[in-house]
């Protein structure tokens, strides 16, 4: 069972209590939300950080060198956790599990490139290796679920390319970007 708070169409707000430790919120037509009897924090959209950043000026990438992508612009940053001016990193202020995605692009690709998520300064997850030559640009994506402690943990987007020279990444909100959002509390 559960303790239930109901917004009825006849009596207004009603309450029904038991000792299950489970809380349900309901409307006139049925249960809407069940908060289970567990430890932790129930998250709602207002306190689950989300961000989307992208590059407006290309990053120079040496051959054979993992290079951090400078992401100078934001589409949104709900909790002001993304640094788009100095370190280009996402440091969420709520502990939990986050879906993190990144995409990088270089035009001249005679060999290959890949995107990589770095966590706390070290490589964490490597993305798709893109190895076909294309005059319109080669693109790699990386995606992973990352745990953050809500204070010091951070992630950054890196690129690696082995095309034999130094190349600039291509900019644009639809081309070289980094985004993520919280999907579960700690």
């Amino acid at each position, binding site marked *: 069972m559960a303790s239930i708070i109901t917004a009825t169409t006849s009596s207004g707000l009603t309450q029904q209590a038991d000792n299950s430790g489970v809380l349900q919120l309901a409307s006139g037509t049925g249960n809407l939300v069940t908060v289970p009897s567990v430890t932790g924090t129930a998250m709602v959209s207002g306190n689950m950080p989300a961000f989307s950043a992208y590059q407006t000026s290309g*990053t120079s*990438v*040496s*051959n*054979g*060198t*993992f*290079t*951090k*992508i*400078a992401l100078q612009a934001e589409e949104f940053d709900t909790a002001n956790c993304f640094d788009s001016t100095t370190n*280009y990193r996402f440091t969420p202020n709520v502990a939990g599990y986050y879906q993190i995605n990144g995409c990088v692009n270089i035009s001249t690709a005679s*060999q290959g490139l890949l995107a990589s998520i770095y966590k706390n300064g070290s*490589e964490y997850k490597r993305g798709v290796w893109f190895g076909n030559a294309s005059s319109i640009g080669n693109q790699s994506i990386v995606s992973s679920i990352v745990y953050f402690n809500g204070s010091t943990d951070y992630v950054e987007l*890196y690129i*690696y390319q*082995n095309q034999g020279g*130094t190349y600039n990444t291509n900019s644009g909100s639809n081309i070289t970007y980094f985004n993520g959002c919280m999907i579960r509390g700690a």
Partner: protein
Amino acid sequence: MTLYDKIMTLYSSLTEQDFLTVITLQNDSDGKGDYIAKWEHPTLPRPTDEELA
């Protein structure tokens, strides 16, 4: 000449796979340039600063 080029000049036997596994060259886009973040090659010693100068 980039750091990668200097290392390849010293150790021409290195492969692209080495730079994706046992060796990591890195640039944190902080103006300090490329550097060796990891060198775990089983036989070749890490180059000295003098060799890379």
